[in-house]
């Protein structure tokens, strides 16, 4: 009988172990394996020379296993000063009735090492999965860099636009664990390493960016303005070397300011450019062949168009004493009436054609999120006086970046470039994954036209609205702008946008600098508010880039040549 029972058990064992063995073993394997995610380290954002703009540092959580705490009061007294917490708070956590509790999260390595050095059995240091995102430049360049949220996902700027590249690919670990999920000794362990994110190399020059932020801030504060933008672009390539907005934010504490200040105003907010838009009028006039440099227009102080009277700006540079004026005079002295006359002579189709050639009807295609196109309309909407006002940059809105690019097209001889903010993508090991090459969108104008318009813009500085703008040794060209601001569809009295877009050096153009200041108090002319900021930025640029002086730059140039 005993033998029978043993045989029955033997058969039962055969069924469980051999017949059903594979199925049971597979189920057991599922239960014994634990899989968890390895989070990749987020890639860096660096400037054109590799200086860190946004990096991820290791970060640590300070955890407590209350069951292993032997002396809650004593250990609390030792840990609290390291963590800058009160001993009472710490002791409360050490006495928690839970298998695990956090004492502190997202702490830096020095603090974590200090805690580990205490060698307390119940208090441990664990790495945070994402680490801590740090923007060492603070507010400088913040609107380009953007920021990341709590789960390390990019929420603005390059962090958002290049989130996928920066994030990398998570890995995984599958390992055999005990019932509490701890890996078992000599157990199988299958690791797919996480692929760290790639590094985004920007076209930004950290030093120029810093200068731009400082100069813009000084300007906005001096004139008690609402806000401002400053862009430095390399004309030949379309690379953005600096892009500043003020007021801005510190990406390390982005929630300390209203969300409105997070946006990159220079690309998200179209504005009425005013006289700086006369670049388009002049280019259209000369390039279409409908106006030559010798053609003259009646020099009027007012013009009645479509039931509206257009005035020249009251800036002391009236065309008094002249009966006629050339295109050069109109731009140099920034005569709105003259610009309106030119626009009316060109007609809707030609003006619209050149507005489109300059790309104002489309976003520029820069690799930044939230870019807006200009508000251009179509010739069909241009009723009443609108064609005439577009001639001097009212009744049309463009972004600061689009306008900068238009000046760059003039400066480089007529080619519209795609603005570049990213220069290259590199792998974590330093290998260059992708190089972003300059990209010509189209030819806007003939080189001949570019040279002629550039000459006019040099006259603006030498004898026109920006007379007195001098950078010793360097020829400058540019255009002032003083536009009435449209707020909620209405021109607001006393609210102006003061701007200056300049080209440096004017004899062999390389850089375009745009300065725009919204609602300055007191003075509001572009020449007074924005042009000095342009000069300061140009001076920094000359110094940083070791720019050779111009050969013929008027009186100042002579002086410079002598010192050479």
């Amino acid at each position, binding site marked *: 009988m*005993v*033998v029978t*029972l*043993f045989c*029955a*058990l*033997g058969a*039962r*064992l*055969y069924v*469980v*172990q*051999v017949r*059903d*063995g*594979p*199925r*049971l*073993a597979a*189920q*057991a*394997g599922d*239960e*014994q394996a634990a899989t968890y995610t390895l989070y990749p380290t987020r890639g860096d954002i660096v400037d054109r020379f590799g200086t860190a703009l946004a990096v991820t540092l290791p970060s640590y959580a300070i955890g407590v296993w209350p069951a292993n705490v032997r002396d809650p009061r004593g250990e609390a007294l030792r840990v609290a000063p390291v963590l800058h917490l009160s001993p009472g708070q710490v002791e409360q956590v050490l006495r928690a009735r839970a298998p695990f509790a956090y004492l502190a999260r997202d702490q830096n390595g020095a603090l974590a090492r200090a805690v580990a050095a205490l060698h307390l059995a119940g208090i441990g240091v664990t790495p945070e999965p994402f680490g801590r995102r740090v923007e060492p430049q603070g507010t400088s360049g913040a609107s380009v860099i953007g920021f990341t949220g709590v789960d390390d996902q990019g929420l603005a700027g390059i962090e958002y636009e290049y989130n996928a590249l920066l994030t990398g690919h998570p890995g995984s670990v599958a390992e*055999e*664990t*005990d*019932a*509490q999920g701890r890996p*078992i000794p000599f*157990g199988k362990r299958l690791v797919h390493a996480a692929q760290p994110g790639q590094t985004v190399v920007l076209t930004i020059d950290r030093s120029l960016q810093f200068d731009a932020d400082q100069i813009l801030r000084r300007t906005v504060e001096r004139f008690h303005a609402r806000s401002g933008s400053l862009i430095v672009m390399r004309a030949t390539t379309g690379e953005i070397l600096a892009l500043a907005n003020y007021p801005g934010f510190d990406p390390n504490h982005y929630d300390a300011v209203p969300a409105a200040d997070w946006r990159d105003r220079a690309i998200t907010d179209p504005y009425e450019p005013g006289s700086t838009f006369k670049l388009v009028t002049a280019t259209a006039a000369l390039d279409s062949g409908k106006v030559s440099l010798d053609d003259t227009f009646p020099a009027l102080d007012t013009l009645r168009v479509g039931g509206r009277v257009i005035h020249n700006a009251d800036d002391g540079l009236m065309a008094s004493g002249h009966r006629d004026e050339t295109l050069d005079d109109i731009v140099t002295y920034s005569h709105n009436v003259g610009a309106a006359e030119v626009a009316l002579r060109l007609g809707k189709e030609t003006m619209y054609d050149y507005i489109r050639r300059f790309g104002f009807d489309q976003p520029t295609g820069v690799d930044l999120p939230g870019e807006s196109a200009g508000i251009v309309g179509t010739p069909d909407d241009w009723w009443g006086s609108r064609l005439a006002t577009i001639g001097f940059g009212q009744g049309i809105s463009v972004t600061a970046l689009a306008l900068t690019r238009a000046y760059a097209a003039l400066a480089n001889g007529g080619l519209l470039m795609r603005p570049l903010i990213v220069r290259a993508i590199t792998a974590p090991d330093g290998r260059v994954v992708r190089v972003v090459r300059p990209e010509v969108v189209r030819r806007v104008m003939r080189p001949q036209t570019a040279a002629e318009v550039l000459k006019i813009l040099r006259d603006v500085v030498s004898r026109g609205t920006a007379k007195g703008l001098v950078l010793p040794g360097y020829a400058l060209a540019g255009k002032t702008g003083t536009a009435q601001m449209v707020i909620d569809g209405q021109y607001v009295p006393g609210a102006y946008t003061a701007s200056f877009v300049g080209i440096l050096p004017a004899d062999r153009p390389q850089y375009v600098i745009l300065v725009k200041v919204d609602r300055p108090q007191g003075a509001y002319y572009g020449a007074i508010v924005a042009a000095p900021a342009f000069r300061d930025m140009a001076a920094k640029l000359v110094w940083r880039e070791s720019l050779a002086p111009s050969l013929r730059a008027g009186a100042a140039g002579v002086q410079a040549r002598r010192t050479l």
Partner: protein
Amino acid sequence: MSAQRPLDAGFLIVTLVLTGIGIVMVFSASSAVAYVQFHDAAYYLKRELLWAGVGACAFYAGARLDYRRLRLLAPWIFGAAVVLLGAVLVSPVGFIEGGARRWLALGIFTFEPSEVAKLALVVMLAHLFSLRREGARSFARAGFPALLCVGLCFALVMREPDLGTASLYLVTAFVMLFAAGARPSHLALEAAVAVPAMLEFIYASPYRRARFLAFLDPWKDPQGTGYHIIQSLYALGSGRWLGLGLGESRQKFGYLPAQHTDFIFAIIGEELGFIGALAVLTLFVVFAYRGIRIALRAEDRFGFHLAFGLTVGITLQALMNVAVVSGSWPITGVPLPFISYGGTSLVMTLFSAGLIAGVSRGPRRPVTDLACVPPRAA
């Protein structure tokens, strides 16, 4: 002295092998849990070795003892065991673990009286059955007292509650009665009283009932009543033919409860495979064969009943344990003799084995059948 036969070598060897396997497997099965609990992987091994040492002395003592002297002591031993069983239930040193009062806390170690009672019961029954030539045929002289003894132990152990051990008492006594020539009607009476009592106990609480019947379909409640059996089947199934290898068990890492005590056979199956499990099973068959052979060759009736009862008790316990572990029987919580971790169990099992071995040697003096009848009973 010279009249004694040599000790049954096969029986000794199988006992040693089983105990050796027990020591190795207790270490393998307990190391992970021991490390987590005590930061010492050998925590249970050290204690097992200590108890094996004590057990070896107990075996030696059992084998050296003139087993016939036990007859004189049988009522006293039995009485003491009953007192101990009662003490577990009522005294302040009764020790509760896992919802049952099974242990007596005696200073540094705990002590399980039901293990002692198992031996005492067999000794008592052997004594009763060898009082007369006709064994247990007389209900009034042998059958009824035997049933009283079993019933007392059964009732006390059921109060702990320890259904496994209690039922083991019943079945062992049943087999002993059968071997002692009890009438079928007596056996039927015993079954008629015991089985309803056990069923009543099980069905009294829905929890016990669910737990009792969980082995029929453990996957009905895999996180609750079925958990233990499923984990045991996972362990056995992972072993396949040859096992994962000694020390390679995964289920011992906190998945399988009682992995070094009542469910150590599952770890044996996982690490040593079907072949290893079958080998252990075969060792118990050999143990049963040698034990019964010793009983049949005993020179007196007491020797026969003693060796037979002890062999049957140990073998049935092994059967029941393996049946539980392989999911063929309700979970009843009996250790695997010689192998499961547990001091009282190991020492008492080795002492019992020693007594069986002692029977194989025969009594000290050549005796007539009469001489083994104690004076008072005669």
